[in-house]
Every structure is written in C-alpha cells, then in structure tokens.
C-alpha cells in the first residue's frame, strides 16, 4: 500500500516536471555533469554581471555582454534570460529584448515580477497594441494590493498609450517621410535638427565618434554631444554633415537648441557649465563668435535644453527641469525687457506641461503655433510631437501629429521650415541607420481626390440607333385585266368605212353589257372589255350580215390591247359569217347556254330579211378521224337549225351541213389555229 502511494507520488512528480513546455534549468552543478570547471567560471561571470546590473547606475551594456556569455553555457535559465531581456530593453534593443523575455516567460512565467510588464512594453513598442493591453491587464491581475499601488499609474499609462496607438495607426496622416540619408544620419543618435527659413542649411546634434574631444559620457554610455551642420547641394540633396568645431563645440556636450530664421544666430546647449545651460552665438562671416550665456533667468543650476525664439526674438521658450514645474522637464518662457535683458521665467502652464517629461519646443514664426515633445498628453509611446496654438491668451488642446510622424518610440525635436512644407524631427525606426535618425517630413495634407469619369445612355433612340424612317407602302398596281378591242369597220368589198353598232353581251347571263357606235366617218371603234366576263360581241351594220366575236376574259390576263378591223359583208348570196359565239359541249352536239346571243343574232337577221335562206355548217379541227369529225360537225349544224326552227323560223329556209375538217380557215398546227377551225358558220343561200 505504501509503496503504491510512493510510486504514485514519484510518478506525479516526474510527470509534473516533464509536462512543462520548457524546462527551466537552474544554475546548479548537478545540472551540468562533466562541466564543473566551466560551470565555476560561468558563475563568476554571472556574479560580476549581477553587480553591474543591480548597481545604482546600472551598466547594462557590460552586464549584457557577460550575461550573454553565461547564456551560451546555459540558454535555458529563466532568470538569466530575463536579465538579458531587461538589459536589451534598457539598451533600447527591443526585438532582442522581446526574444529573451519571451524565452524567460516560457521557462518560468513567474521568474520576475516585472516580466509581463516589460514584455508588454516590448509589444507596445512593436505596435502589437492588443497583445500589450492583454498582457498589461494580466500583469495587473497578478499584483497584490501593496504592489499594485506602485504600478497602477504606470500600467494605466501604458494601456492608454496603446489605445492611442491603435487609434492613430488606424488613421495615419498623409505625410511623406524621408530619412535624411547617410550624409546626415549614422548608427549613433542623430537628433535635434533645426533649419533656417529657406530650408537650405540644417543644424543638428549627434553623439558620434567624431565629437570634439572624442570623449564618452560615462553615465549615458554615449559619445559626447556635438553640433553638426549640413547644406543642400545644387541638386537639393543634403551634403555630408560637417562638424563646425570650436567655439560652438567643446569636449563636453554641445547640442543645437535653436536657429534664427536667417541662420545667422544659433542657440546651443552646453553641458559643461551649471548642469547645462543655453548659449547663443552669431555667425560673423564664416566664423562663429564665442557663445554667450543667456543669463540667469534662463539658465539655472538645473538642466536647460531645447529652446526656440519667437519671430520677433523678444521671447524665448525653453525646456528646464527646475523644480517648480509640473514634473520632470517643463517648458518655460522668458521675455526680453526694454534693456535687452531676459526677464523672469514663466512656466507655460498645465495645458502644455505635464507631470511627465516635456522635451523640446519649437515656435513657428507666425507667433502663435508651437510644436513640442512630451511623454504626457495622449502620446502613443515615449515622446510624441504635439502641436499647440496660443491665441487670445489661451492655449488650444495639444494635437498629436499622428502616425507615422509619431511612433511608439521617442519622437522629439520637431522643427519646421518657414514655408511650413517641410518638418524635421528625430525618431528611431526599424529601417533607420540605428538609434535616433533625423527625418524630413513633407505634409501632404488631405488626400487629393482622383476623379473618375462615367457616362450613360440616357436616351433610348440614340442608344439603339432605331430606324424610325418609314417608307410608304407599295401601291396596288391595279392589275388591269382589261382588253381594249379597237379597229375599223369597213365594207368588205368597197373597203369604205361603215357605220355600225357594237353590242357587248355577257354570255353567262345573256345580258347586254353595253352598246357602242363606231365613228361614221372613219369607221373606227373602241370597246373596253373589263376582265371577268365571257363576252359576245356583235357588230351590226345596215344591210350587212352581222359580225360576231367572242372574247373570254374570265381568267385575268392583265391588260391587252387588241386591234381588230372588221369587214362587214353585205347580205348577198354566198356571204359567210362565222358564228363565233356558238358553243357546244366538248365532243357533243349540245348547244351551250352561252350560245344564246349568237342564236338570237341569227334569228334577228332571219326575221329582218324574211326571204333569207341560209345554210348552217359545222367545222372542226383535224384532231380525230374524218368520219368522226364529219358526223359531229353535221350533228352540231343540225342542232342549230333545230333551235332556229323551234324559235319559229320555217324549216324551208334552213339547211345544215357538216364539213368536218375539210374547210379549215386557219392552220391546224397551233392551238389557236385549231380553235379557229372549230366553228359554226352560216351562208346566205338566197335572198
């Protein structure tokens, strides 16, 4: 039973240990078997490093080097990783700081109270605002009521800065930011730039090896500040920066503070005296005069840095950390009296100054606009540059210049050219030359809107190109189915014109359609025969045998003009008339009703001339046998005679005969000819 418990306990211990994502390897001899000698050395190194790390004025640089050596021996110690991370953080190498702090966290998230706080700051600086805020909240939760008091304000400020950062990054200002390039910037801090009014000369401060005297500030672990300048060349590029040397520069800190618009007067900070004071120097031809202090009211035992003059040079604005301010460095103002001496310094007040650091001030020549840097107000991290105006005795609300002008790091020393087009400031960015660099900002202003152009097809007819053009329709050609029958009526023998009447009969109903007369003098006649009827035409003249004709227009044949000269025969023995309007059923001897008119003509003439004796003869074409044709023609002739007799004509006046095809009057080779041959005639036998 006991062993069971023991084993369970051991197993839990082991599994508990193994389940950790990273194993925190403590610096214990037992963890490094076989490396006792090296271990001893490393412990010594770490001890030295710890001393530097925990000193009143920590030397993070050296400590870092030592820690890194220890780290290569044992990279998996949470505390070591934390310390390295912190060193990097203090040295402002935030990517590295993040790396080591995260490693430390993965090994032991409770390795140091400040772990999450530092890590959150790293995220903040890297623009990972949400991550930072989450971690800050988490950090706060881990604090006990006592410690919370210490960190409360700082945590809140961090969170606010992150929130501000989010907002500003979401609405970037339209600027064009250009690094001034290797002619000006180096891997060392380059900052505090001022330009003259026409933007042709630039003065700035740098902590680089070419500093006058070449010395290093032990406390800041940097080369002493020196003043440098650069001019624009003919192409508009900044030339390689030059050191103006003494008397502007000294072996100690010499920094640019302000420049007069014409570039002939410079205000510099000299660290040598009095904790740091502001001096002024004039450009006498090509040489700077010996710098002169601005006096007691401006300069105190405290640290005075950045200064800017009003456009009329009667007021100086400067930064000082004298104790009567709001906290840290504040911005003050001194006015020149009639005697040319600087009056008492006034703090610009709580609208500008905050409990946090204010670091630089620049007055625009317009007399009311100022740019300053502050770690307070709504900075998004470190110092941010703000714009403020002073009108009617009142300061406006400080306005953060926005992202990407301001960053999560320190953005300081803003100055602007007189025409307001170009601003200069210092910032530390990933793609700089290292440390602080000087940048030129071009304010692009509100985005200019590009204009798109469109069109529509508002009117339908124009779009579709519709043809409304109308054409008048075709005219009905009156398909004239008409025959004009015209000619001259003459006497057969004398050839003289004969007066005659022309009778038109509709043979289908035996109705007389019309009766015309010809011209007596000329004998000319003209009859119009509209289509659609079967006409019988009878021409009568005095003392003549009638002339008959048939025009069948029952099928439309269009328009025809037919000239037919008619010769009338006097009633004389032997005169023959073709009865063109006698019709028989095909192959038979039955008279068709259309024959009515013609038969009436016959009756009329027989009645007119009572003594007339006639012979009716039948004729055929040559189709069929002679016998057949003869018989048929005879029967047909007889039919006519029978009809006449039935109408009261005495039989002794009538004879009939069938001639078959013996007496053709036209050729039998054509249908028209054959039609002509098929006829009934009457001949005058006697009068």
């Amino acid at each position, binding site marked *: 039973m006991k062993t069971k418990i023991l084993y369970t306990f051991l197993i839990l211990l082991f599994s508990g240990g193994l389940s950790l994502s990273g194993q925190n390897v403590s610096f214990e001899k037992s963890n490094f078997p076989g490396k006792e000698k090296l271990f001893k050395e490393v412990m010594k190194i770490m001890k030295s490093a710890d001393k530097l790390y925990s000193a009143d004025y920590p030397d993070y640089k050296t400590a870092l080097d030592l820690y890194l050596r220890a780290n290569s021996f044992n990279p998996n110690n949470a505390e070591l990783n934390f310390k390295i991370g912190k060193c990097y953080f203090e040295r402002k190498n935030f990517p590295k700081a993040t790396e080591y702090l995260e490693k430390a966290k993965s090994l032991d998230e409770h390795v140091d109270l400040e772990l999450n706080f530092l890590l959150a700051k790293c995220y903040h600086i890297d623009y990972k605002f949400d991550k930072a805020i989450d971690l800050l909240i988490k950090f706060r939760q881990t604090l006990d009521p006592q410690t919370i008091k210490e960190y409360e304000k700082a945590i809140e400020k961090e969170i606010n800065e992150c929130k501000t950062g989010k907002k500003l990054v979401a609405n970037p200002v339209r600027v064009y930011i250009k690094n001034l390039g290797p002619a000006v910037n180096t891997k060392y801090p380059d900052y505090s730039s001022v330009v003259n009014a026409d933007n042709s000369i630039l003065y700035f401060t740098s902590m680089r090896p070419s500093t006058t005297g070449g010395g290093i500030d032990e406390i800041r672990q940097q080369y002493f500040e020196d003043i440098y300048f650069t001019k624009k060349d003919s192409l508009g590029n900044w030339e390689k920066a030059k050191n103006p040397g003494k008397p502007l520069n000294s072996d100690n800190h010499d920094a640019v503070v302000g420049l007069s618009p014409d570039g002939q007067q410079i205000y510099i900070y000299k660290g040598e005296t009095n904790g740091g004071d502001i001096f002024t120097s004039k450009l006498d031809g090509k040489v700077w005069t010996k710098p002169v202090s601005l006096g007691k009211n401006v300069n105190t035992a405290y640290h005075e840095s950045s200064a800017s003059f009003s456009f009329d040079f009667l007021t100086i604005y400067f930064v000082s950390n004298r104790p009567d301010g709001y906290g840290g460095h504040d911005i003050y103002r001194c006015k020149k009296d009639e005697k040319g001496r600087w009056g008492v310094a006034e703090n610009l007040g709580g609208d500008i100054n905050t409990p946090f650091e204010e670091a630089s001030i620049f007055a625009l020549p317009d007399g009311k606009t100022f740019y300053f840097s502050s770690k307070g107000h709504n900075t998004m991290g470190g110092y941010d540059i703000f714009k403020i105006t002073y009108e009617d005795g009142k300061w406006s609300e400080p306005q953060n210049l926005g992202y990407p002008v301001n960053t999560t790091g320190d953005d300081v020393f803003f100055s602007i050219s007189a025409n307001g087009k170009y601003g200069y400031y210092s910032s530390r960015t990933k793609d700089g030359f290292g440390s602080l660099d000087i940048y030129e900002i071009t304010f*692009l202003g509100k985005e200019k809107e590009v204009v798109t152009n469109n069109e529509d*097809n508002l009117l339908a007819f124009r779009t579709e190109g519709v043809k409304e053009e109308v054409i008048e329709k075709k005219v009905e050609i009156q398909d004239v189915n008409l025959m004009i029958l015209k000619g001259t009526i003459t006497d057969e023998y004398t050839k003289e014109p004969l007066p005659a009447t022309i009778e038109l009969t509709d043979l289908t109903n035996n109705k007389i359609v019309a009766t015309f007369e010809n011209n007596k003098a000329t004998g000319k006649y003209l009859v119009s025969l509209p289509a659609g009827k079967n006409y019988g035409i009878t021409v009568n003249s005095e003392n003549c045998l009638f002339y008959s004709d048939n025009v069948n227009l029952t099928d439309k044949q269009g328009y025809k003009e037919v000239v037919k000269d008619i010769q009338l025969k006097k009633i004389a023995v032997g005169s023959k008339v073709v009865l063109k309007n006698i019709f028989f059923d095909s192959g038979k001897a039955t008279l068709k009703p259309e024959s009515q008119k013609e038969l009436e003509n016959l009756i009329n003439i027989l009645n007119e001339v009572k003594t007339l004796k006639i012979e009716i003869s039948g004729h055929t074409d040559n189709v069929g046998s002679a016998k057949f044709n003869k018989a048929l023609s005879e029967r047909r002739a007889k039919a006519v005679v029978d009809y006449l007799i039935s109408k009261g004509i005495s039989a002794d006046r009538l004879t009939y005969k069938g001639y078959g095809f013996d007496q053709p009057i036209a050729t039998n080779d054509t249908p028209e000819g054959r039609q002509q041959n098929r006829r009934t005639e009457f001949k005058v036998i006697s009068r």
Partner: protein
Amino acid sequence: MRQIFITLLLTTIIFGVKAQTGDNPAEVLDTIKTVSAADNQKAEKLYNQGIVQYQQGKYDEAVTKFDEAIKIKPNFAKAYFNRATCKAEQEKYAESISDYNMAILLDPAAKSYFSRGLVRYKMKDYTGAETDFKNAAASGTSTVKAQAFYYLGCVYFDGKKYEEAIKQYDKAIEAKPDYAYAFNDRGSAKRQLEKYQEALKDYRRAIQLNPQMAFTFNNMASVKKKLGDLEGAITDYTSAIELKPDYYIAYNNRGSVYMMKKEYNKALADFTKAISLKPDYAFAYNNRGNVKYKLKRYEDAIKDYNEAIKINPSYGYAYLNRGISKEMLRDESGACADWKKAYSLGIERAHSYVKAQCN
C-alpha cells in the same frame, strides 16, 4: 318598195338597237378610267420597285427608281416621301428635307411631318423638329402621335428642358401605354431633375415592357449609384452586361462602383475589360489609373493616364489625376505642370492645388 321597207325596218331596228344602252353605264365609265389607269401605272410600278431596292438596302438604286416615278408623275407624293427616306439613310439630309417638303406640300400627312421632323432633329434644327413633331402629334394616328410626342420629348431633353420633356413623354405613353423607350427616357429626365426614386420607377416599367434593353439596366444602376445603393448598382450593371456583352460603358460604370467599394481588383478587371472592348475609351484608362493610384502603384497609374491623354489631349481630369500620382512620387514639378494644364482645360480644383503648392 320592199327594199325601202326593209331599209326602213332595219333602220328602225338599228335605231332601236342603238337606243339600248348597256345595263351598267357606270361600268362603262369605270372602264374608261381603268383604261387610263392602266396606261399610267408605269410610275407606280417604278415606285414599287424602288421600295424593293430600299428594303434590300440599295439606296442609290431606290432613289433612281423614285426619280423615274416622279418624272412620270410629278405629283407622286409617296414617291417623294420614300425618296426622302432614302436620302436620309444616305445622310443627304438637306435633300431629304427638300423631298419631305414636297411630300408634305402634296399630301400634308402626320407621317410626313414626323419623318421630316426626324431629319431636322438629326440636323440639329431643334426648332424645326419641334414644329414638325407637334404637327405630327396633332393629326396622326395614335402610333404616329406616340412617336411624335416621344421625339418631342427627346428634343426638349437635349435642350435640357427636362420638365417639358417629361410632359411629352407622358403624352407619348398615353398614346402608347407600352412605349418602353418613353419610359426609359422619362426616367432619364427625372434623373436629370434628381428625382431618383421616380426615375427608378420609370426605368423598372421600361424593363417590364422590354427586358432586353441593356441601356435601361445601365441607367438604373447609375441612379442607384447616386443613391448610394452600390450593391444594387452592381447587380444592374451586371444585368446590362449580360444582355450586351460588349457594353463597355457598363463595364466602366461598374468598375467605378467597385472602386467606391474599395474592391480594387474587381475595379481593375472591369476597366481593363472596357479597354479591351473599346481601345480608345479614354475614360476607362483614366479610371484604371485611379485604381492603380489607390493601390499605390503610382508609376503604373501614370502610364494609364498617359494613354488617356494620348487618346484625348484635352482630357482635363486625366491631367489632374496624373498630377496627383506624380506628387506621390515626389515629382513636384511634374505634378504642378499637370495641374496647371488641368486648370487651363477648365478643371477648377486644379487651381487650388497650384496655388497651394506650386510657385
């Protein structure tokens, strides 16, 4: 004696026969008229042939036929009318008008006024067109009336008299309730008066009557764009394109809406399509340049603006836009030159840029 008697008898009979007239004297007259008609139908035949030629699109030949017809029959109103139509097809507008004048003189029909009105309209004789359309509307059949009112509306529309135009379209619709074109154009007139909802109503009605009118979909979409209904606009432009796959105007319009929605790749595609359909469509080049500007591809944007300007050297907005891209490339002198040019071409806002930034 007997002979005298016979002669007398015959004469009597003949006179008697003579006295007989046909049953239908009218028909007699008719035939005479018919005979004369038959004689002169040559003109009509030529006229009909002319119509056949016209229908085959052979306008020269058609005109010849009508010429001949008119030579034979100088009062042949229909021949003048048709010849006028042919001349209009041949864009010989002055001659067309003169023929219509003749046709109207001979036969002042609503149709003739209408047709002459159309040609006058083409010749931008708005006053003349107005008069003719009014005449046609007054006397024509409901079809002619509807058309006359419609074109009258269009004349007013062109003259920017939108209220008047609407009144005419109203009448056109009254005469022809399914006049899809009239609904479309009335919608456009209302749009010009910024009565957007009413415009949409008319456009919808037009589509109901004729769902094939791609341009109406386009017009609807543009109104929706103005109302901020971007989704609706895209839907309708798309419909327009579906109906008319080569509708470069609609592609260009749809691209602009995509731009407003910041869907830049879709906008790019549409402008590119418009260009491929109509390689000299300066608008599409300009607009595509704008998209590239938004995508921060300033050099590419400038290339497109260059094209637009090449096509139309007086394209003020292209200069304006190109200047903006040049500014982003820090080519201040180039930007200023472009803005000065844009201002000289009438683009007011370029002046403020020049004043602010250029010396």
